[in-house]
């Protein structure tokens, strides 16, 4: 009774605040899609819109900023956005390798392994874009407990074609892009907790209540994203996403692909988030028949089933949405030959066994009956030197240089702090229908100073994945109807020449002795006065 009265009191306190900040709209959505390999892809998206808000003009950075009063929008993030005058921000933290061939395109395109951060900022004379980029990195790494601080100039680039502004372009200043990625960043609970804190209901109510770290981090793939965009007609939009690919066949006792919310997350939605304007669970139905879904819902639209969980609807809470295949004893994996789900499948490897050179090879397969033109972007840390003259484009071992166009290459450039920026290779590949295009180039591996090696030197270095992206529509004829988003290739591990760090003193002593012997004898020969000495026998 007492607790109820407190809740009522709190609710009364909240009601006037909704009236005050009518400019903020919060909505949440969960998309569940059973995949053909028995896995289940889930995408949570939590969207907060600040209606009518405008990103801060960087020219006004020196002046006092307008005061920030938010009810739903997270203040900690808002402060960072205002402090560094960020127009658009995308941060993703992912673990695992997204299997495009079996899982198709993700609902949120940013699935590159590790951490990826990119931001569009207006240029200004008050503080440079790079200064604000550095501040942004450090602020976000504090906010999300991630090693974003190490996304320094050795990893920062500006690939504007592959990562365009997804919202509107503000007119107040010319805008610049900063992009960096850290493939070795691992994602875990310490990143999820601050993520949940940005939500208005935290993980107490609404869809976020399902986010059980024990289950989410046991999934075959999981990743979270923070996307801030500005659209002229709506305002600043903050979209927090969390994707996870569960494997019910692995976790269930009978190796079945049946799933329900309780089995996936080991939690259920007890109550809806009161401030959410809309809250829904969408199940994307598989094409093959034989499944059953509960609770039965008549609203099947285009292969989707939508459950509205918001408090206004008459849907009963708690709910457990379940899908099962009653006629299936245990899940039978589809047998090859399997055609990939996505029209484009990409593989990327580094060949060669020496520690000094190798061959970077990429094979792109077009599975569709139409020709596809794709942008190819390689952002390579200066650990590897790409040799452009060895770049080869082949189809069935025949050189087809005509399929490569618009090649742009920026070699690593020395920065002010004596570090090398990454090299950037950008090209347009035209892949004929139903063929595999192979692209290869030789690389040299850098010889690092011994102080530049990390403590786990014998592990090797992680290289970020390449990105394939659709070309802007203007330069692109309408014949290809394939609508797609960025594709990230898996990351690579490369062995650089590594000294034996396990016995540094032995190595130092041995090499110093050798140096002394060589130097000593040569010095002796050079400085000695040669005389004839008579020896009487």
């Amino acid at each position, binding site marked *: 009774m007492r607790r109820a009265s407190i809740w009522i009191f709190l609710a009364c306190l909240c009601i006037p605040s909704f009236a005050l900040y009518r400019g903020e709209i919060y909505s949440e959505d969960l998309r569940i899609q059973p995949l053909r*390999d028995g896995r289940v892809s889930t995408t949570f998206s939590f969207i907060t819109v600040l209606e009518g808000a405008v990103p801060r003009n960087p020219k006004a950075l020196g002046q006092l900023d307008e005061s920030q009063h938010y009810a739903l929008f997270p203040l900690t993030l808002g402060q960072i956005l205002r402090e560094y005058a960020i127009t658009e921000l995308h941060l993703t933290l992912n*673990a695992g390798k997204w299997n495009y061939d079996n899982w198709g395109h993700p609902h949120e395109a940013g699935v590159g392994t590790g951490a990826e951060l990119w931001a569009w900022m207006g240029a200004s004379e008050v503080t440079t874009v790079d200064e604000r980029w550095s501040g942004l990195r450090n602020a976000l790494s504090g906010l999300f407990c991630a090693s974003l601080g190490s996304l320094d100039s050795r990893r920062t680039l500006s690939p504007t074609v592959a990562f365009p502004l997804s919202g509107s372009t503000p007119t107040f200043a010319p805008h610049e892009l900063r992009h960096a990625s850290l493939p070795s960043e691992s994602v875990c609970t310490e990143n999820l907790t601050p993520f949940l804190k940005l939500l208005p209901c935290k993980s107490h109510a609404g869809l976020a209540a399902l986010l059980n770290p024990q289950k989410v981090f046991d999934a075959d793939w999981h990743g979270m994203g923070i996307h801030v965009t500005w659209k002229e007609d709506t305002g600043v939009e903050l979209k927090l996403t969390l994707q996870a690919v569960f494997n019910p066949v*692995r976790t269930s006792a009978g190796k079945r692909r049946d799933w329900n919310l309780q089995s996936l997350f080991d939690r259920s939605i007890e109550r809806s988030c009161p401030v959410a304007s809309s809250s829904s669970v969408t199940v994307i139905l598989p094409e093959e028949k034989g499944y059953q879904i509960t609770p039965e819902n008549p609203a099947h639209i285009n292969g989707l089933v939508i459950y509205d969980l918001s408090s206004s609807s008459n849907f009963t809470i708690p709910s457990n949405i379940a899908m099962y295949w009653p006629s299936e004893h245990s899940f039978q994996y589809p047998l090859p030959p399997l055609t990939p789900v996505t029209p484009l499948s990409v593989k990327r490897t580094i060949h060669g066994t020496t520690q000094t050179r190798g061959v970077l090879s990429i094979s792109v397969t077009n599975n569709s009956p139409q020709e596809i033109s794709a942008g190819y972007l390689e952002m390579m840390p200066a650990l590897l030197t790409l040799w452009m003259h060895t770049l080869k484009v082949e189809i069935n071992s025949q050189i087809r240089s005509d399929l490569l166009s618009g090649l742009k290459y920026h070699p690593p450039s020395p920065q002010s702090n004596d570090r090398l920026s990454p090299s950037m290779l950008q090209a347009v590949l035209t892949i004929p229908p139903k063929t595999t295009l192979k692209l290869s180039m030789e690389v040299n591996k850098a010889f690092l100073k011994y102080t530049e090696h990390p403590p786990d030197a014998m592990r090797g270095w992680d290289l970020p994945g390449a990105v394939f992206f659709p070309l802007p529509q203007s330069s692109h004829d309408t014949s290809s109807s394939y609508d797609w988003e960025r594709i990230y290739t898996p990351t690579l591990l490369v062995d650089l020449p590594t000294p034996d760090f396990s016995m540094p003193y032995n190595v130092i002593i041995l090499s110093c002795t050798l140096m002394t012997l060589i130097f000593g004898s040569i010095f002796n020969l050079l400085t000695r006065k040669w005389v004839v000495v008579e020896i009487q026998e």
Partner: protein
Amino acid sequence: MDRIRGFLMRPRRPGANVARLRRRKQLAAYLHRNLTKLTSALFIIGYAWMLLIPIPLLSRGTYIDENALQPAQVNTYWNWGNVHTADLQLYQLDGIRERNFTSEQRAEFFRTEFSKLGLAASIQNYTFSTSKGTISGNNAYAVMSSPRAAGTEAMVISASWLSTAGHGALNLRGISTVLSLAAFLKDYSLWAKDIIFIISDDYLHGMHAWLNAYHGTIPSNLHTDPLEHTSGVIWTALNIDYSSHSFSHLGVFHEGLNGRLPNQDLINSFRLISHYTGGVPMTVYDHLEPSDAVDRLPEQSVFPSWVPPFIQQSPQLQQYGYRVRNVIRHIGYQARGMCSGVHGLMHQFRIDAITLFAVPADGPHGFHALGKIVESTLRTMNNLLERLHASFFFYILTSPGTFMKIGMFLPSAILVSVAMLFKGLGEWVTAGWVCEMSEASLKGNETEKPSPAKGTWRNRRRPLLSALIVVVATHVLGVLVFNLICSRWFAKYPSFLAPAIFVAVSVIPPILLPLLSTNAPEAAPTSMLLKSSNLCLASTVISIMSLLNFSLAAMLAITMGVPLATSYTSSSTMTTHLRYAGYCMLAWGWLVLVPGEVESAIWNWEVLGVWFAPFICIVYAPLVMQAAIVCLQGS
């Protein structure tokens, strides 16, 4: 600075330099006088050391160096249900054997089995072209992408179709272990590295083709398509060889191609896991320890049957005999650059790998123990944050629990090499001097032998050109012979060509030798200079080889040490010819005596790229031939 300068510029005693030079001269003279004693001592110590390598005193206990490994610290989940899966797989494989499936059909079957588990599986077709014709086959493999991990690192579990046990034994149980492990391991989310399952065709060449395709280092004589599925960098690998019904011990085979060895941490962790998790004792190769071999068959005993019983029953001698067997087996593999199993192909790609060989026995172990051990070993390998680098790469495993550090065996070969170097330098000094008898002393004492003490020593020129021509010519001859034995003709008619080549290389030097311009009489004779350069060259070869491949260096020290040091020009034609024939036998005799070895060495070179055959033809045999020519030149 001033102090240093002062020290350097300090006044010297006037006689100091003279005294030092005199001391040095005396030392050199002393060494030269006692050179024979010194080199003999070095030879004896070197060879005796080689004999002492197996004694337990020189070995030390193995230990785990990499802290991340944590062997035998996990609970395993492999249970009798999985053993049942393995039994079912074995039943299917038996059917395959009875129906005589072709290589393609087998690979297709394995691919389907992997695909049923939801793994990305594929088949690799390959063809090697060798001088004996083409070899082709089909490998089946599957990649298990680890959940949550980026897939930048990978581990390999493999089984070849044929077993190490030889005699056409099929590795059916090894393959069913791999298939059932694939079904079992994919149900756990704890893998931090991708796991690649490979069922390679035949014994060695299947895996060799797969590894080359995976690393993109396809040699010119291999035709294969790029692999359909790839994963990250492979760090460690286990090859399973289980051909018999059940096993009592798990034997570890570790030698790789060209004398490479895997990091010792892998073997040591496996030993602990095998002992504590599976309850199966580990052995080196399939040699049972004397304590285990009590009720064994006589052919598995440490000693041959003619050894008197009191030696057979002495525990110390049994232990020594056991270690001798291990060391000889190790040297046999390593000196020839051969791998002792399929794992050995991986070392050249920086993959630390071993073969687990189920030592045939009536019991008590089977799939249950093997599955648990492999699971636990994979968990240990899964713990690795870096490549295996902490422990030893140069060692001799004398028994499962003891090994020799490089410092304990390397000096034996080095001492022999030093002895040869001293001998060669001594010969060089001797060649530079000639003792001239004065007319008077010659006339006065015609009956006495002219003694050097009474003559006067004179410097003489040492023109190296003719000796160098001989050296170069012998090595060129070696290259020719090597090309010949790798040719298609040799592969076709080995029984005719091998003796023909042997006769040719033995006859050519005596025929060509008179064409060589001999040194002028006042200069040093060519034979002395040739012997000197020959010994120095051989010594250098041995000491360099000892760092790359100790076993080969030890074999070279044994075969070349004393024979090269004792080559001399004899006055009698008979002995000269006999000696020459002996050296020819030592250099090229293998052509006629061990045709099987020749064939396997050529196959190893052509398919696997083992350097043993070219090394013997181009380096070893010419060096011995130079010693043979030293004998000829006196006559």
